[in-house]
């Protein structure tokens, strides 16, 4: 029996402890927003937040998340669109869309606590997420934009994101 919370709801699921969280989310809980892409931690399509940290759910057993707080893409909209989702729509990021839940979940860490990420921070945080459709420049733009939206929402002033890095 695995016990953890998903999107703020306590869950008890009758699966073996070595069952990957990804398939529990998809099959036991019907949360299809989290995607299967590679199963070996290489693509990031399965990224969810575990206690706030972006984590590959295909590489995580339910045993390892006992008692943890899990957030999936479905949970991001609890209070309306998350700044990242708003930015994703504004910048029209998704192409096929299959990688995008994972991209958004990975990006949450970048704007946490009002952080305004630089390009090199974005590279570091997002390079574990493959987009086979090559929407990388739109993803980058949308992350910068999400930082602005977040600042607008909290009423703080956002400084222009640094365009540093080695590009």
């Amino acid at each position, binding site marked *: 029996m695995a016990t953890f919370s998903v999107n703020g709801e306590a869950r008890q699921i009758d699966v*073996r402890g070595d*069952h*990957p969280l990804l*398939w529990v989310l*998809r*099959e*036991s809980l*019907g*949360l*299809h*927003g*989290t*995607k*299967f*892409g*590679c*199963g*070996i931690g*290489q*693509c990031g*399509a399965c990224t969810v937040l575990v206690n706030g940290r972006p984590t590959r759910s295909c590489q995580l057993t339910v045993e390892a998340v006992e008692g943890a707080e899990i957030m*999936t*893409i*479905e949970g*991001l*909209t609890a209070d309306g*669109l998350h700044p990242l*989702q708003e930015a*994703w*729509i504004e910048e*029209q*990021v*998704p*192409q*096929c*869309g*299959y*990688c*995008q*839940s994972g991209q*958004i979940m990975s990006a949450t860490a970048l704007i946490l606590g009002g952080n305004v990420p630089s390009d090199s921070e*974005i*590279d*570091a945080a*997002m*390079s*574990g*997420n*493959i*987009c*086979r*459709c*090559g*929407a*990388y*420049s*739109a*993803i*980058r733009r949308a992350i910068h934009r999400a930082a602005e939206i977040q600042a607008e929402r909290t009423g703080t002033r956002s400084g222009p994101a640094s365009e540093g890095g080695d*590009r």
Partner: protein
Amino acid sequence: MMAPTEGVSVTAISRESDPPRRGFSRRSFVKIGVVTGAGLTLGVTWKVMSNPGLPSSDATLVPNAFLRIDADGTITVMVPRSEMGQGVSTALPQLVAEELDAAWGQVSFEFAPAHDAFGMMVTGGSTSVKESWLPLRQAGATARWMLREAAAQRWGIPAAEVETRDARAFAPDGASVTYADLAAEAALLDVPDEVPLKDPADFRLIGQSVPRLDVEAKSTGQAVFGIDAGPNEARIAMVARPPVFGGKVRSFRPDAALAVPGVREVVLIQSGVAVVADGYIAAKAGRDALVIEWDDGPAAGLNDAEIFAQLRDAAQNNGRTVRDEGDVETALSSSEAKVRATYQLPYLAHATMEPMNCTAWVRDGRCTVWAPTQFQNAPAILGGGARQVAAKAAGVSADNTEVHTTFLGGGFGRRAERDFVHEAAELAGLVEGPVKVIWSREDDMQHDFYRPASYHELTATLNADGSPDAWHHQMASQSILQRLAPSWVPGPAARFAGRRDPTSTEGASDQPYRSPNVQMTYAMVDLPIPVGFWRSVGHTHTGFVVESFIDELAHAAGRDPYEYRRALLSEHPRHLGVLDAVAAAAGWGSTVPDGRARGIAVVESFGSYVAEVAEVSMQSGRPRVHRVWCAIDCGVVVNPRIVRAQMESGIVFGLTAALYGEINIQAGRVVQSNFHDYPMLRMNEAPDIEVVLAPSGDAPGGVGEPGTPPIAPAVTNAIYALTGERIRTLPIVRA
């Protein structure tokens, strides 16, 4: 938004080929009638001018799409093409909405069900917008005409005095009424025969970057892909397929698999041994536990070295002439100074982000399929689409088979194959209840239909002015069409008697550079590796070869590669247009940052012209692509942002292949298995891309594929400019 509407009566459509029936005249548009109370639904017929990937271009009239205006004001466009990221579920409704004078905010779409009423339903060859350009605009214009007429009748004024915009009709006195309000009255009118289309100067939506209709669902985890679709109670199946191409199951023992908790059944199907379980992990564990003795078949000894030796031998000795101008033999022998080059390109996997999968349910003589497919419907004579293939596999009739198209997590040509549909439908016919076959990434990579490997030898001689006097190209590869021909092409013998395959040689047999003596030969090689359409098909290799070789000639002639191309393309204004546009955008000829160099390439494919410049440096022996400039002329631009996104996408796709893409064959099987050994370009390696739209003309070309071909040669040409090393074998970074 996703599921096809069951309530739409597709059988009510009159086919153009049917004798005229009362109430339906022989016209392009037919009124389906009033659905769900008050609403106007139009069925559309259009001429399919050509079918992507198919050699046939017989113009046949087939009904193909619906437009529905509901009483609540929703305007729904049935999209008979697959959305795999290329934006078709936005661009096609945009065509309708333009002529309809609809308000974009009220437009939505549904994927059309697989049905003969929609004719051949295949998404490929970058043809969706091209083929829909007139018929979907006509659909919108016809509906607008009827709505305007209904308003005129209501107001008792001539229709000419009624204006329309934002889904409303306006009277001269300022009165207005919504389309929603008019829909029921419009539905009672006769459908007009001919309705004029807008002057492009009056377009308000075409040419605008209207928001995509699929991005919100895709940003909130709500979009339903194949892997998410179908009944919740579906069992999950995985299939153990022969590791060697052409292999078979000799015998198997299911006991250990059946002992795995959650495994329900083990079933022998055509493609291998299927393990049906309660979930993916159980299915996978069950499959791992299977004991199978394989009959590897004749391919068991095959490897890359042998494949390329066969290709080389065939190119040198067995080519058939596919282009012959002037006298290449004499021209080649009349000069000592020859430029020779040999190019070699590997097999490539599609690696769509969503691995192959398909859900099927067979009950009471009916088969229902949920599939992320690029190919829903085709006559049996063409081998059938998903619907026909599923019907056959499940042993039911096509009329009793329904195919629900989901969003596709990438397609790139892989999902035009129907193997994954066949497998699911066959299995569903053998087990109780719905079943979803999921492929692991490893399955997906090792059981693909690969971009064919190819081998090319080119020889040229130059005139005193440096221009090519002779251009000789010998090429060998497997043929995609030959594999598909028996099922796709009626009477394959006639077409393939000469063993030619335009989809293999496209871009090379018709390369545009001026030379008085040009010859190309093509040798079709039969090998047991399954090959298929891969984003931009023949251009994936011919674009690289032609654009590398012309660069070699430019350097041999001591000329600037951009100017050299220009001089030889003087009769090709659209090539020149994009070359000039990209050169201007990149500032070709201006100073490049230290340690970097630029390369250029231009390729026409799928009716669009694309030129690209890549700026490259070498970092610890590996190329780093910093910036790419891209100019595209795709005729008219329907949605600029989507065109830009497709160019970026095509460039990243092509760059991934150029840098890393290689499927190796050892002992008749694929060596690579997942993203660790078949790497994808990632965020930290993605170049800055600047896209320039340089549209010309008034008919759209494709945009899904044409961004891909020029990037590999642009990069290797830049590497040559930087290091003097000419890369003639891809990928650039070899393990």
